[in-house]
Each structure stands twice: as C-alpha cells, then as structure tokens.
C-alpha cells in the first residue's frame, strides 16, 4: 500500500469515524446536560424568533462595535469565505463530496479557486500574526487555537502545492493533502473548530433566552 492508498483508504475511514464519533459525543455531552425550567413570566411568549434573529444578525457586528472590530472581522470573513470557495467550489472537492453524499453542484473556474486559496492563506497568516501580537488574543490563546490554525491552513497549503505540482510528486502531494484533511477531521470535534456547529446552538440559545426577556439581542 502506498501513501496515497493509505490516505484515501484507512486514513480517511478512520478520520471520518473519529469525526462523527467526536461530533456526536461532544454535542450530546453538552445538550443532554440539565436544563432548568424558567417560570418567569415571558415578555414575549414565543422565543424561537429571537434564536433565528440572533443567529442571523450576529454575523455582522452592531454599528457601535464596528470601529473597534472591523479589522479582525474582515480578516476572519475573508478566510472563511476563501475556505468556502475553495472547499465547495473546486471540482475535485465536489467529486469528493459527491462520492460521500451523492450530491453534485457546478464547480467554479480553477482561476477563482487558486486566487481564493492564495487569499485564504494570506488571511490565515495575518490571523496568526494577530493572534501572536494582539495582547488580548495572545493572552486567550492556547494549544487549541494554534493547532486548529495549523490544521486549517495545512490542507489549503498542501492543496495549493498539489494543484501546482510543487515540491514533490503529485501522488505524494495528493496523499499529504488528503492526510491533512484527515488530521483536520480528527481534530475537528475536539477543538475550537467545533464552533462551526456550536455557533448555531450558542447563538440560538442566547437568542431564545433573551427574546423571552425582551433583552437586547
């Protein structure tokens, strides 16, 4: 078995298994904790609209907060969008998803993917620089932050190298790329990358609780 076979075979299988195992473990471990009934008289009888509202509106900061957060948010948005374009727009990736889910959608031109990939890498490097230099972020950061950054940028970099056939043979580059995805999947449920799922739960929870009180969302 060569490296590519290992990557496409057992490595991916294990990564998928750990990914879904960890995801369901963590989500249930959180969601099944006790919930206290709230007997207070609600200001608004239905609270789910607040959940929806917060999930949507918190994607963009309030006017009052913009001046102080615009840089960090912009960089964050850039790399998130870049990742979405690269992950879901590149033809070989769509093939990958199709082989897993049977879903298919049209791909973006490769030039768009390459530019997005480059921008994403640049934005991620800025993100790391900010984490290292901004006193607040530096104080807050732990292994999870740096490792999650690493497992996020690695697939982009290895993917770009594979596409450009740079640095090694294509099958090695492709194998390393797939292995980096496997690493991402394995780490995903255990680190901060879970925010991609938790963001809806967390925002929704606050949105619903606050809507009940009429508190500011």
């Amino acid at each position, binding site marked *: 078995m060569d490296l590519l076979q290992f990557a496409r075979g*057992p490595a991916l299988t294990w990564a998928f298994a750990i990914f879904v195992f960890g995801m369901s473990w963590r989500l249930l471990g959180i969601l099944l904790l006790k919930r206290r009934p709230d007997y207070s008289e609600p200001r608004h009888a239905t609270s789910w609209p607040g959940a929806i509202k917060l999930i949507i509106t918190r994607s963009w900061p309030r006017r009052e907060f913009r001046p102080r957060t615009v840089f960090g948010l912009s960089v964050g948005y850039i790399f998130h969008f870049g990742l979405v374009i690269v992950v879901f727009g590149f033809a070989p990736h769509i093939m990958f998803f199709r082989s897993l889910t049977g879903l298919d959608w049209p791909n973006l031109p490769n030039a768009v993917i390459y530019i997005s990939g480059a921008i994403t890498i640049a934005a991620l490097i800025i993100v790391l620089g900010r984490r290292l230099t901004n006193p607040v972020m530096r104080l807050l950061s732990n292994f999870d932050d740096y490792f999650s950054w690493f497992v996020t940028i690695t697939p982009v970099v290895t993917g770009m190298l594979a596409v450009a056939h740079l640095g090694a043979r*294509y099958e090695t580059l492709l194998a390393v790329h797939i292995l980096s995805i496997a690493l991402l999947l394995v780490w995903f449920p255990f680190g901060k990358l879970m925010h991609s799922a938790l963001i809806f739960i967390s925002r929704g929870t606050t949105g619903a609780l606050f809507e009940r009180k009429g508190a500011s969302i």
Partner: protein
Amino acid sequence: MNEPDTLGASLTRTGISRRSFLKFCTAMASLMALPPSAAYAMADALQRTQRQSVIWLSFQECTGCVESLTRSFDPTLEQMIFEMISLDYQHTLQAASGTAAESAREQAMKASYGKYLLIVDGSIPTKDGGVYSTVAGISNYDMLVETAKGAAAIVSVGTCSSYGGIPHANPNPTGAVAVTDIIKDKPVMNVPGCPPIPSVIAGVLAYFVTYGKLPELDHLNRPKVFFADTIHDRCYRRPFYDQGKFAKTFDDEGARNGWCLYELGCKGPTTYNACATIKWNGGVSFPIESGHGCLGCSEPNFWDKGSFYQPLPTPLADNAPVIAAATLGGIAVGTVAAVVSRKHQADIGTKEGK
C-alpha cells in the same frame, strides 16, 4: 550463434545498411533525449562491438510485453533492436523447443557469464514452492535466481516483473512478486507498463548495448528519461484540467469537447510514463486521446487502487457503515458523559443538603 559476432557484421549479413543503422541510432538518441552527436558515437561504437547476448525469461505473464515489442508494423525501427542483440533464449520467439531450448540458455549463460543481459517479463510465483509457474520443470523462482547469477544487469519488462502486476493483485493467490523482490545484488531496471511502450523497451536496450550500463534510474528503478513526467504533465488535455473543465460522463458535452477525464477516474496525474509523448501504435494516439482515462498500468498495484473509473481524490473505502457506526458510538458515549456529569452535579447537591 556462439561465434564472436560484431554488430557490423551482423548488419551486413541481414542486409541492413549503415545509413539505416545510423538512422536507428539517431531516432533512439532523440527518443532518449541524448545529445544529437551521441547518435554518431553510438553508431560508431555499436558497429565494432559484439552483439550483446540477451537471455529473455518469461514467467507468470500474458506475453503482452513481447507482443508489444514484436507485433508492431513491420519492419520498424524498434525491431532493429533484435539485430543489435543476440537473443540467445526467448521461449516464445525461439525456434528450438524442449531440451534444446533449455540447453541454449545454459550455453549462453556459460559463454557470456557475467556479461549477458537478462530480460524478464512476468511475475514470479513464490507460494507453495513456486509450483504455479514452471518451465521445463524448473520453477520460475529457481530459474530467475540461477540465471541472474551470471547477468551483467537485469531488465524487468512490464508491470508484472517490475511490481508483481496483475498476478500480484489482491488476494495474490500465487504469491507473485517482482524481480526486485528476489534479486538484490544485481542492477535491475524496471520498464513497467501493461504493456510498456515498444520504443521504450527498444530505447533502453539500445542504451545498454551502447554504453554497457543501465541509464539513470529513479526511485522505482525506472529509466528517468521515460518515466520522469506523469501522463498528466504531458497530456494534451491538461489545459482543460487547469481551467477546471471536466467531462462528467463518457458521452456528455465535455467528453465531446475533449475535456479533462479526471472526474472519470483518469490516473494520469499519478502515472509516470511516456504515453502522452511517444504514444502508441507508431505514434497514432494514446488512451486519453482515444477518450478514455489512463488506468495507471505502469504504476505499482494499479489493479488494487479502486475502480478505474473512480476519481483520484475520492475515498477508496465505502465509509457509510463506519460513519453510521461511529455516529451511534458517539451518541452513546456523549449520552453517558452527560449522564455522568448530571449525576456528579446531583451528588454535589445532596452533599450540600447534609
């Protein structure tokens, strides 16, 4: 056959003019990206040398490799290689049979001990004492070991002798292995392909005959000059790959437009061979040009790397059952974790009550 015989004399005997020979040398030099002046040196040197003694052993194989080399349109430049060598044993081509054939091999070994070139096609079965393929009652394994002893170098022609090939495919019932799995103390060159391109076989043989050594090899013992680039690197459809234009089925608009076959499982990007440049059938075309993706036939284990039609970046295994099982497992463990935490909290509460 045993007399010392210069190549020049042999050429004269068979009526091949020296201009034809010079032309052959020029073509081979061009093919192997040697400097043009090498053709003259090659022609000059070859004229004077003795014909190279070659023993060709065919083991667990389909004869496709020999067919590839011999069944080209006749007469071809490739076939001129047979004029350059003294093919002392090749059980498909030789006239002799039975004991006479085997004694030819033994005589050739004795006469050119330490100097003959050994060509092998086919893999070597090792299971059950190698009984799955024998020639004249001698197992392939024994014959290889014995013949390899006196060889100056060994050329494994085809994927089977290079990597084990189709006989080696899972579950490998005969325990087939490659030449390099058995012979460790001789220079071995692999010329993989199922079959290899005839010009490539001829080219590397010409090189050995001319220079008396094997050309530069890569990490899989392949001659770099033919196996340095992937099919994908040299593919005329590559621009479509770079633009992200892919045929999705064999009869869609993309296929008709000659777009890239990556999504149809083409293994071009991971296959190192010269098909895209030298092509097949005297330069007529190669598989991708005929509208079918590369199978990767010159790569190790190509038979076991998933379907020929499965795209390269997709998972090899069917992961659905694993994912389902792991999800259920995660749900169970997560539930237990939550229950344990709740109990833990309740215990604190009770303790507090006391």
